[in-house]
């Protein structure tokens, strides 16, 4: 008897939770759960009108999110602006003490230029994407354990395609993984799923740089067992995947507990504008 009553109670509770709309509510919980499941199943349609609608919705959300986050962004920028100013002030103090040998620096600069030309010839740098790029600002900077990405203000309207290389200044920071009409998502090199074919100079060793979630260093995979890689060697994109052009600097080798990592040149915290390369 009491068990039956208990079951009845449970049924009444479940009915009131899932079917009752309640005060000032337009939808019941069950309706919305079913709608969520239907929307989730629509993820399988990667082309056609559903995809276009999804693309427009994403654009709208990204733009709205950008405008709402503007006050927070200006606070963050002000913080970095002040800390940069303090750094420059400190650096200036130290530079005043150091006696710079300009002639020596000129020779060093000349040597580096020549070395650069030689290295470019060595890795047969393609000029495929070198001139065509958009300078764009970042709409969203998303850092979750499962995704290190940014959303940029250019989409397929601007000829951006999946796989396009993205640079911050001269340095490679990631590649485009999702393109909407007006916006695109860039997977940063620090993301767990990022795998970029690279070449380590001056020895010309090929490897794969894989993100590990850290914004400072990345893992190096598929290194030959006997390699002569030393601290400070420079890591460039190799272009072996046929999408990203070769010769874009990524970082330099750093050795931590006799394990080799890439220390990224780009400071992921302070990226405001990026160059996204495209092919017409």
């Amino acid at each position, binding site marked *: 008897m009491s068990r039956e009553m208990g079951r009845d109670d449970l049924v009444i*509770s*479940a009915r*009131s*939770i*899932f079917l009752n709309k*309640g*005060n*000032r*509510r*337009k*939808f*019941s*919980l069950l309706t*919305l*759960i079913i*709608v*969520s*499941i*239907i*929307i*989730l*199943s*629509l*993820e399988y349609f990667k082309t056609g009108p559903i995809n276009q609608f*999804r693309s427009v*919705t*994403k654009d709208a*959300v*990204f733009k*709205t*999110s950008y405008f*709402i*986050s503007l006050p*927070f962004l200006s606070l963050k920028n002000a913080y970095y602006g002040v800390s940069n100013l303090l750094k420059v002030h400190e650096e200036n103090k130290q530079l005043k003490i150091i006696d710079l040998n300009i002639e020596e620096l000129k020779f060093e600069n000349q040597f580096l230029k020549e070395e650069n030309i030689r290295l470019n010839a060595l890795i047969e740098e393609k000029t495929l994407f070198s001139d065509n790029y958009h300078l764009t600002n970042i709409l*969203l900077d*998303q*850092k*979750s*354990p*499962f*995704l290190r*990405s940014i959303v940029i203000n250019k989409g397929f309207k601007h000829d951006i395609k999946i796989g396009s290389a993205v640079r911050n200044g001269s340095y490679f920071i990631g590649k485009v993984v*999702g393109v909407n009409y007006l916006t695109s*998502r860039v997977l940063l090199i620090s993301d*767990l*799923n990022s795998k970029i074919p690279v070449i380590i100079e001056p020895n010309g060793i090929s490897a794969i740089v894989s993100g590990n*979630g*850290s914004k400072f260093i990345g893992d190096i995979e598929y290194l030959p067992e006997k390699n002569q890689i030393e601290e400070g060697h420079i890591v460039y994109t190799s272009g072996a995947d046929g999408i990203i052009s070769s010769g874009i600097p990524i970082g330099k080798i750093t050795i931590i507990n006799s394990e080799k990592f890439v220390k990224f040149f780009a400071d992921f915290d302070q990226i405001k504008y990026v160059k996204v390369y495209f092919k017409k």
Partner: protein
Amino acid sequence: MSLFANRIYSRTITSLPTLILFLVVILGLNISIIYENYDFIINFSYIIVFFWSLKKPEHLGYGLIFLAGIINDIVQSLPIGISSLDYLLLSAIGAFIRNRSIIYNLFYDWISFFIAILIVGSVNYIVLVTIFKIPIVYESLILGLFVTFLIYPLFFKIFVWIDNLVRVNQNDKKNR
């Protein structure tokens, strides 16, 4: 205070739970932490949805929760609909506990929240990994859920304070 300012203040106070939830999902304010090779996320949106569904469901409608989930999916680049499903499940569990329980205290809510996020986390993991083949580090997910569970009491106190503000505001309205 003028009548207009009074109305704005009153509206803002009453919509605070909704505003907080939408700010968290739109700005991606769920904090990501790296600790000894484990990268995990504190999911504030879970706390907000569960607390308000359990305590004052009239302040946070199901439609808004659904919409917040859709926005969260777009911002986090997750399959669209998964967060809505998570949040609505949390709401359902919150509503179920509200219907079935007589005693209300922090400890009871805390334990209920733990069970709720374990269920939601499992659904999330199963859908993302088995259906959408998205690689998720299981340890990160569990660690994130556990830390979210640990900070629940802090947010409980903040939300109770907000709830009191809303109640005072509503009483003022009635007395006017």
